[in-house]
């Protein structure tokens, strides 16, 4: 009961990937193969087991609230593909 090609297209959309038809075919096969390997985990009873999100849990990490040097605005935008007036230029996102 694997994922259909259409479901894979849905995942590609969520992933913000504009995949080619050939890529969708390949990924459908590959992802279904991997999902079959994941079924093995269902053998284990984990009802009373706490999940691990970090191997070495660290809680409540605070630092002093003090002013420290930071990047200059022109450094922050230095790597932008398109930049104007220290801002990143992106396609229009609001209606006119």
């Amino acid at each position, binding site marked *: 009961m694997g*994922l259909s090609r259409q479901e*894979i297209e849905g*995942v*590609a959309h*969520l*992933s*913000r*990937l*504009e*995949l*080619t038809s050939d*890529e969708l075919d*390949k*990924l459908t096969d*590959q*992802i279904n*193969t*991997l999902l079959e*390997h*994941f079924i*093995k*985990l*269902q053998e*284990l009873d*984990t009802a009373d*087991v*706490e*999940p*691990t*999100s*970090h*191997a*070495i849990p*660290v809680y409540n*990490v605070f*630092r002093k609230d003090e002013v420290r040097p930071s*990047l200059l605005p022109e*450094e*922050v*935008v*230095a*790597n*932008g*593909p*398109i930049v104007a007036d220290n801002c*990143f230029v*992106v*396609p*229009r*996102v609001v209606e006119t």
Partner: protein
Amino acid sequence: MPDELYRLTAHEIADLIHCRKVSALEVARSFNTRISDVDPKVRSYITLTPELAEQQAIAIDEAIERGDEIPTLAGIPWAIKDNMNTRGIMTTCASKILDGYKPVYNATVVDRLAKDGALTLGKANLDEFAMGSSTENSGLFVTHNPWDLDKVPGGSSGGSAAAVSADECAFSLGSDTGGSIRQPASFCGVVGLKPTYGRVSRYGLIAFASSLDQIGPLTKDVEDCALVMNSICGKDQMDSTSLDIPRPDFTKSLRNDVKGLKIGVPKEFFAQGTDPDVEKSVMDAIELLKSLGADWKETSMPNVEYGLPVYYIIAPAECSSNLARYDGVRYGLRSTKSTDTIAMFQHTREEGFGPEVKQRIMIGTYTLSAGYYDAYYLKAQKVRTMLRRDFEKAFEEFDVLITPTSPTVSFGIGEKTHDPMAMKLADVCTIPANLAGIPAISIPCGFKDGMPIGLQIMGKSLDEETMLRVAYTFEQNTQFHKARPNL
């Protein structure tokens, strides 16, 4: 002698510099020449910084001339895996999506090594975003194993491992999410150490799977490993997961003595698919340690067999989240195919990411999506807890655990690229240490058909010292680490 400086270990070079037998500049030039000679064949480096290394060397020599006290790693040339930020120096992650990216800040490890006087030779190749086990997933080019140029160097820190093995640097840094330092160290016949999670700051390491990633050294011997660990470990305000605990002096662990130490040998790490010659070398190594006074016993860690599926759920889930930032807005590539915002993101990511990265983003997005989260991601996190408990239980009885680093030696370039599962099996012995957060080291312990075999020693959480002591003792009583490829 200056011609052959590149063959020396970091501690040997440091001794020569400290007693003024050679200058840092002679060292830098020796390595730069070596790189020009062999890198066209090996292709360890994405970016070279020969002028920077020489400038740094001149500054060290001037400090020596003035009679200043110089730091331990002064004049030691090193290579950086190209997923760590270097200010003003192109940082690619071996991905087209970071096209033209020049970081405006250094990773903490880069600052620490610069402060300790190490010389920056360049940025080493890797599997794109550190996803892979052969460096064949590099979006730029393939790195070759210095022992056999038709074989892979392992991965994902393949460039870092090949550079050390080919004497193209004295040491390097890699990052290890599921074995990416230890497995290439094993394939290239060098030492590779993954520290306890939290020992080393990840600030400036381009994130793949944040709960698993850890930076560590690749070196020519265990002593060098201790020296580099002394430089890179410690709390960093910029990484809240770095641990606020004192750093031991790791060179104090360099003792040729394993008397009374208890070694556990978990049978699940020798499962089907382990090359009999690899198994024999590892068992010979364990017997040698026994003859030197250690005890060993077989043990069982029943949940280790679930390590691979747990890892291939957790790592892609974290990857899909971390790699959401590559959208063509703030750095790197932006597709010119569309003027619509969402389509701009989609085309940029389609053009910029390679096939392995896309596959992992897709798996992670799926396993985290509504309705599937509990069955995959949460389940994997719970099994991760069970696996951690296996380690806790084993370490009640044993001081270290010893296994192969990889079930096989290096394989041919192109041999496994068509089978996604076959490649992933290369990490079966290394993944458990990442899931448990414990330290692990790979050291050379033999050869099969001319290709190096790696011995993995795993230690208790935050007990790199005992692990290093076992590794050092093995090294002092064998010659494997002295073998170098003919290039």
